[in-house]
């Protein structure tokens, strides 16, 4: 058993930022991540922030990793956390245990499944997988690619695939279903895209959002939107076609394209379009495998079930903190700001950080959120407000803790 002041789960932007804040203050810090390469979702990220500045996630990840190492953070990469027990003890693969009085859970996000027929064929993958393969590992996931699902991540990845020389045949809607919800509805997607206009992190998203700026025109737009799609920086945005099946025996050979009306209903006409790769985007959700003991709520504006937490990022379990996408789906910069808060909160508990520094860090989370160039969910501010109210309603820390364990 190895003892630390704080054990952090997840070496993405939130976990590494928490580690840096706690370790630079003088704390003994362990970080565990199942990936052998630290960085989490940062590894694949690549988007233009301004005319001559790119957010290159892998460089940000390398910088955070170096700073954490310089501060004496012990990285347990390629290790899995399978359980967490009060005190706190983290059970790792192979029977090892890490003990620490404080824990920061920064387990991030995963992508929702989109189980359309044929989705298990080799060549079908999530947009997140395609992003990391293309930008980090530098392997094009296919030559002719169909993207399914319209959201900031899928639009960004479609553009990245195009930049990497792939022929992106289109961004299509998922079939209308209980599972895809509004995602299969052309009118909903037009409204959603228009909401991204001011938030768009790159020229591609701005162009997509600009299609439908005028809310009055949106309803008509859904009806009049051409079936052939509208090209956005060379990638056809096919809001009037859905992918209803993926075909192939040993690997993806084609997608079944179905024309849909303004309400997303199939018009009966389908055709096969040859592709060798399909990238599915069902949206991100916060990963809660380790937060089971914390009081939580389902807040759709934040992407699903999230643990309730204080401004200092502490959950209803004393000395268990959270940071990053485990608290709701937002960009890497917000995750980093939250991680810094959690790390400083732990340092303050240890008597290693001034309360004023922690207060400044708390204040900066909202500043970063306001100026963030990428917003995955349109009403994240409302989601944070709801989460804050629920936290306040949970009463004192001890009461909430007792409820959580009851």
């Amino acid at each position, binding site marked *: 058993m190895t003892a630390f002041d704080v054990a952090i789960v997840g070496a993405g932007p939130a976990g590494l930022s928490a580690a840096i804040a706690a370790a630079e203050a003088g704390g003994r810090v362990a970080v565990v991540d*199942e990936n052998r390469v630290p960085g989490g979702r940062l590894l694949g990220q690549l988007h233009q922030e301004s005319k001559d500045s790119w957010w290159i996630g892998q460089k940000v990840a390398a910088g955070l990793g170096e700073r954490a190492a310089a501060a004496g953070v012990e990285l347990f990469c390629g290790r899995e956390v399978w359980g967490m027990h009060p005190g706190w003890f983290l059970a790792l693969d192979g029977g090892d245990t890490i003990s620490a009085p404080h824990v920061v859970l920064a387990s991030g996000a995963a992508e929702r499944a989109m189980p359309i027929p044929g989705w298990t064929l*080799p060549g079908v993958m999530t947009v997140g*997988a395609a992003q990391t*393969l293309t930008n980090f*590992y*530098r392997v094009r*996931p296919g030559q002719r690619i169909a993207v399914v699902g319209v959201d900031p991540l899928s639009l960004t990845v479609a553009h990245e695939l195009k*930049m*990497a020389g792939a022929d992106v045949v289109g961004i299509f809607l998922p079939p209308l279903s209980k599972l895809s919800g509004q995602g299969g509805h052309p009118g909903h997607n037009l409204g959603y895209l228009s909401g991204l206009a001011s938030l768009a992190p790159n020229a591609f998203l701005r162009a997509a959002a600009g299609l439908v700026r005028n809310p009055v025109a949106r309803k008509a737009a859904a009806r009049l939107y051409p079936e052939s799609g509208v090209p956005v920086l060379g990638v056809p945005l096919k809001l009037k076609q859905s992918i209803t099946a993926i075909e192939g025996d*040993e690997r993806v050979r084609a997608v079944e394209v179905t024309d849909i009306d303004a309400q997303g209903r199939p018009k009966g006409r389908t055709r096969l379009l040859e592709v060798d790769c399909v990238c599915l985007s069902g949206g991100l959700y916060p990963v809660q495998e380790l937060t089971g003991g914390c009081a939580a709520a389902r807040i759709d504006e934040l992407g699903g079930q999230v643990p309730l937490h204080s401004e200092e990022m502490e959950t209803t379990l004393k000395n268990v903190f959270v940071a990053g996408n485990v608290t709701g789906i937002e960009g890497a910069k917000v995750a980093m700001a939250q991680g810094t808060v959690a790390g400083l909160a732990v340092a303050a508990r240890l008597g290693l950080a001034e309360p004023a520094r922690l207060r400044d860090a708390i204040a900066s989370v909202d500043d970063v959120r306001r100026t963030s160039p990428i917003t995955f969910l349109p009403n994240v501010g409302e989601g944070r407000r709801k989460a804050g109210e629920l936290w306040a309603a949970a009463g004192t820390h001890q009461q909430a803790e007792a409820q959580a364990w009851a």
Partner: protein
Amino acid sequence: MQRLTEHPVLGPLGGQPISFEFDGIVYPAIEGDSVASALLACGIRTLRRSKQAGEPRGIYCGIGHCYECRVTVDGKSSVRACITPVADGMVVKPGPAPAEARP
């Protein structure tokens, strides 16, 4: 070839060439590759077959969450190809090791 040796923003690709074995065949890779990325660069998409129906499976989530890409690496069964760095001389077999071959 699906390898991106040049990229308009990220520039040229670095990394030392190495080689490893998959299903008895030697393939090239670049230091820093995952097992999954190295195989994909060589056009290999099928990493295992499903136990019941024998259907092909490959990379799905890319972050170690779905366990679809599990392979056997140097005798170790059920290793996730997407988050396992490839190493020079590594011996990879598709899917988990058969039960009788496990230690």
